[in-house]
């Protein structure tokens, strides 16, 4: 029996997003990923005594932008607070964060699971600084005798987005995260490189008997950075909690970590861990007063968001599935739109983008942004098919060459002599040669065997290396045989 027959899951997610600024939130160190350990560090972000942080304006701009895209209310008055705890990735022994007056509150986004739409509340979004990175000597944190600290990431600006506990299934959680990341990608608030840890998820989950409304005791699993690990972790953790409850025991409220290798969550509980952060207003930073004119200025820079774009594509006659794939990343949707501005048949364009183009990207393990083919070049190729210069079949090979060389379609067709033969006189000559060489087929056709013409067309295509314009070949053959 599955646990879901007995229990209902309640889940809320905290998402940490690294904002796409050039410099850190309170100092001028670069936010660039990688770099030799402890080389993107200064007196401010390493927490030396006597230094003063100064807030990066772009962090506020991006936080407002994300807040608006998530349908949130932007605070008129906002401030920073110190969250006090001891952990080696935190050089100051406190994290500069926001407590009671976050920059954004009461947002929402809409997910679709199994065709049903559902609105997921976003309690708040607040600005804070990222912590450093720990490298453990053992395989996991719990099995390590010592750890190594790199403070390059310390002070990289984060937006922490806290959802309401509105999620009731793993499918809903994954849909919420995908939708959230898409919005952050479209608004370019973050580079959204999950594999580099620029978006990380903390999953709060509890079970309760079906039909009851009191919340069960939850656990929090921290620092997941892919949709797949969220899915696997939740499958494990819900099963684990169900077993605890089935045995008549109580779930312990605690922080857990996901061991990807073993596929289990592990308790991070310790005697010393007390969630008593003793927040107090950050005396080194003055508050923010956010005039409505500032918010409106940023609202004007909001791009078309994924949901709006999907609807627009569907209105062009594309299927819900196709519209979903094309809008899955802003880069792909932008590519499609740019090609569409040059080549108006959305359906043909969709077939090429979702078929050959994505296949080539996947085969070369590249993203849309790395594509050697520009949207205009793809549009030009499709125009050449429409004009009859090449057949669709030949065009696939041309696209591969375009991908490999970056050359325009027209140039490749010219260089390789791939142009479709639409010259009636030239083609008529070949048609006559083929007729002369195959008297039996001609006789069969004249005797009423329609199929014989197919053989003759094939011979003409062979003679022209597939470049003959098929409709012209048919027309000429019929004329000469009648």
């Amino acid at each position, binding site marked *: 029996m599955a646990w879901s027959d007995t229990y209902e899951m309640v889940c809320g997610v905290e998402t940490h997003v690294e904002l796409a*600024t*050039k*410099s850190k939130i309170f*100092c*001028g*160190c*670069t936010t660039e990923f990688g770099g*030799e*350990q*402890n*080389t*993107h*560090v*200064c*007196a401010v972000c*390493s927490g030396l005594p006597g230094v003063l942080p*100064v*807030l*990066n*304006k*772009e*962090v*506020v701009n991006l936080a407002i932008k994300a807040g608006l895209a998530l349908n949130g209310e932007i605070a008129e*008055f906002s*401030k920073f607070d110190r969250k*006090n705890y*001891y*952990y*080696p990735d935190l050089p100051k022994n406190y994290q500069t964060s926001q407590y009671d*007056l976050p920059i954004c509150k009461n947002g929402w986004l809409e997910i679709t699971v199994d065709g049903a739409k559902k609105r997921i509340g976003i309690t708040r979004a607040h600005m804070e600084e990222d912590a450093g990175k*720990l*490298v453990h000597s053992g395989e996991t*944190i*719990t099995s*390590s*005798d*010592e*750890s*190594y*600290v*790199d*403070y390059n990431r310390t002070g990289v600006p984060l937006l922490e987005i806290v959802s309401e506990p509105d999620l009731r299934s793993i499918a809903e959680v994954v849909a919420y995260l995908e939708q959230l990341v898409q919005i952050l990608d479209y608004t370019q608030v973050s580079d959204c490189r999950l594999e580099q840890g620029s978006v990380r998820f903390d999953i709060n989950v509890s079970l309760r008997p079906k039909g009851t409304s009191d919340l069960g005791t939850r656990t929090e699993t921290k620092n997941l950075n892919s949709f797949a690990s969220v899915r696997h972790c939740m499958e494990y953790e819900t099963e684990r909690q169900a077993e605890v409850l089935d045995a008549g025991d109580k779930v312990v409220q605690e922080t857990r970590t996901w061991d990807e290798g073993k596929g289990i969550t592990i308790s*991070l509980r*310790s005697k*010393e861990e*007390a969630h*008593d952060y*003793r927040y107090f*207003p950050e*005396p080194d*930073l*003055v*508050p*923010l*007063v956010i005039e409505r004119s500032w918010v409106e200025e940023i609202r004007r820079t909001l791009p078309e968001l994924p949901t709006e774009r999907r609807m627009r594509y569907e209105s062009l006659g594309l299927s819900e599935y196709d519209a979903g794939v094309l809008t899955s990343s802003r880069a792909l949707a932008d590519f499609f739109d740019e090609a569409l501005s040059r080549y108006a048949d959305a359906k043909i364009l969709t077939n090429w983008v979702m078929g050959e183009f994505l296949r080539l990207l996947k085969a070369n393990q590249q993203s849309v942004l790395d594509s050697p083919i520009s949207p205009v070049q793809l549009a030009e190729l499709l125009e050449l098919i429409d004009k009859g210069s090449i057949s669709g079949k030949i065009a696939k090979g041309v696209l591969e060459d375009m991908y490999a060389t970056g050359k325009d379609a027209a140039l490749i067709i010219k260089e390789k002599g791939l142009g479709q033969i639409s010259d009636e006189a030239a083609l008529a000559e070949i048609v006559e040669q083929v007729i002369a060489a195959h008297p039996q087929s001609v006789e069969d056709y004249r005797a009423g065997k329609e199929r014989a013409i197919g053989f003759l067309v094939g011979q003409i295509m062979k003679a022209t290396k597939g470049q003959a314009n098929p409709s012209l070949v048919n027309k000429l053959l019929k004329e000469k045989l009648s």
Partner: protein
Amino acid sequence: MVKFVKISRQAVEHVALLARLELSEQEIGTYTEQLNTILDYAAILEKLDTSEVQPTAHAVPLHNVLREDEVRVSMPQEKVLQNAPDAENGFFRVPKIV
């Protein structure tokens, strides 16, 4: 006037644990007494009528002190690690965490 809740010995032990301070029995007694004296003194402020006053977010009447998003040169690695009690290969080295 609202009377502050007295600080108990347990509260002092809890705060000491959070601050990673190891206190002797005698020190716990001393600090419990001293903290209560400080709070009693601060309680004088309770005589003020603050019902019409907004909570203070900052002592200085300033807001929106912001800098442009510009990258500056960071410190060299050896400077960053200069005060490290233990370091290896460019990293700070720390004892077992959990």
